[in-house]
């Protein structure tokens, strides 16, 4: 049979593309053998209540931020390309539109700790093309740096400016060998210390804040966060956007 060149090329292309995929060898199901750690803390909806009155002193806030950044190998790159999992911002910056000309003086000068709010309806999770950021059943918005392609769509989508991108190779001053770094080209943010929660320990910022930050389960009526929210008026950042943030601030 005489084939025209065009038909030959077409058949060759079809043959290559329809080659059966390499049969996966009988691989042991390693993933199926993984379980939740027995000592892990579980919750229906993790949330945080930050009492800003008890974090008025700058050294206390700095200690909280240092505890987080040192453990998680967050590099110290001040300026427009900073990487920060937890930051400090003024009242007007944290709650745009909330302050008025007649707000109390101690509130106008208050500095707040801002971090990822682990929203219940997170726009960053909606827009991520690979699922590198995802919402867990217990409410934590996780971050998989292995899968992130660095498109930064989540940074455009986050209404709270909680996410940082590694514009260059992060080189923290001291590397904590127990926790991995990130490479250039991926997004990172607060993870509510998911690893520590699975070991039964609270997040580092909570421990360093010495009671100023409460962390608990909103679905549990007896939790610390529920009792604090019942007794104090607490606000969330930009609640009108409908993202349902999980970080509450007692003003």
């Amino acid at each position, binding site marked *: 049979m005489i084939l025209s060149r065009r038909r030959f090329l077409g058949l060759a292309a079809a043959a290559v593309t329809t080659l059966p995929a390499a049969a996966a060898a009988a691989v042991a199901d390693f993933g199926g053998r993984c379980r939740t750690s027995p000592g892990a803390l579980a919750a229906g909806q993790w949330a945080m209540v930050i009492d800003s009155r008890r974090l008025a002193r700058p050294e206390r806030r700095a200690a909280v931020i240092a505890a987080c950044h040192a453990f998680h190998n967050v590099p110290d790159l001040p300026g*427009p*390309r*900073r*990487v920060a999992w937890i930051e400090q*911002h003024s009242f*007007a*910056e*944290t709650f*745009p*539109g909330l302050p008025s000309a007649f707000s109390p003086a101690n509130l106008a000068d208050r500095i707040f700790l801002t971090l990822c709010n682990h929203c219940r309806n997170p*726009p960053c999770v*909606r*827009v*991520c*093309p*690979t*699922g*590198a950021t995802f919402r867990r059943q217990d409410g934590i918005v996780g971050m998989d740096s292995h*899968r*992130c*392609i*660095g*498109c*930064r*769509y989540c*940074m*455009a*989508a*986050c*209404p*709270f*400016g909680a996410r*940082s*991108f*590694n*514009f*260059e*190779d992060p080189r923290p001053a001291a590397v904590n060998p127990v926790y991995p770094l990130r*490479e*250039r*080209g*991926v*997004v990172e943010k607060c993870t509510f210390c998911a690893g520590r929660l699975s070991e039964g320990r609270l997040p580092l910022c909570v421990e360093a804040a010495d009671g100023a930050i409460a962390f608990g389960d909103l679905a549990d009526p007896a939790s610390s966060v529920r009792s604090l929210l019942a007794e104090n008026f607490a606000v969330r950042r*930009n609640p009108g*956007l*409908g*993202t349902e943030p999980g970080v509450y601030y007692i003003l």
Partner: protein
Amino acid sequence: MAARRLPFSRFSLWLLFLGCLSLPGAYFYLEQYRQGICLTGLSRDVPWGLYVAQFTFLVGVAASSVVFTLPAHFHQDQRFARLLLPAESLAIGAVFSACLFVFVDLGRPERLWNILLHPHPGSLIFWDMIALPGYLVLTSLLFWLRWNRQRHGIPPPPRTGGLLTLSIFWAFSIHTLTAFLYAGLPGRDFWFSAILAARFLASAFCSGPAILLLLALAGQRFFRLSPDPQALRALLRIITYTMGLTIFFFLLACFSVFYGQIPAQTASFAMLASSSSLPAWCLGTALVSFSLLACPAARAHPVLLPLSLVLVLVSIWLDKGYLFILGGFSRNPFGQAAFYAPSLPEACIALSIYACGALVVSIGLRLGSAEESGLRPEPGRGAASPGRERKGAAGEKFR
């Protein structure tokens, strides 16, 4: 003719020039891949800048092929049918460049396949990953089918009709998806507008035909081409009306912002307007170009017409290709003004990608300058290589 004979044709020299223009960008991109996106002017407050803006602009130019395919296919309008090959060349070059711009913007481009391996249909970038390469394949296929048969004087096969219909809907979709990238983000008030897709399409249907009309006028003036004057008149009409629509849609957005006076929206508008003089230039060139286009004497003028088209492109590029992206980030989530300026490596990479796109468009235009497009060079004029003379001689037989 023989006295000015060059070893290479002018077209080859043009391609070589474009190839050389792509080299600095390739070098700077390798540096950017090695060092990270820190080589650009992007920051934590402005995560998207020049690259994503060019992607937005070029997807619009790519989608504008529908201005030609829709009348030609649905209404058998022969004026547009003759311009189908050049329009599809422009679309192929534009979508190819748009894909390149997305690629160079990624922090970890080697993980691009994660979008397909772990699909998330809720993300617009997932749909863009499917729609843009699909549009590239579709338009290339249509170009090849039409060009191959035009070469031999045979009408296109019947199945091209189905592909053409698909490409019409696909072209609308790619630019609507691009608008959806921005229009669904709750925290970005500058972008959060239902009319965004309509604004994008209007400016796209203005910029694409404007590029093609400029190329046709340049061909008429410098390369002795003879495009169909009826087709050019129809194009000019479309450009005029869509430019008017673009300005009108912008004014609609201004009304909502400044009459509603919601601080978040007025602040982001105001921060963008005060960041540089570019917003004033954008609006100014838009109004001047529209005035020129609407004025019959200016439309017929040999200098004012190309000038008005250039101004159209300048204003739409300033809008979609720069200021629109910055507007979403000019006010960061903490209410502070954010600053962005492209760095030199960033600008070089962008220029080189444009050169690659121009290369693709040039090859397509050259291939497509066949009988029916009306852009066939008249034989015996300006021929600098034997190949050209032969083609000219063959062309004479069919005249």
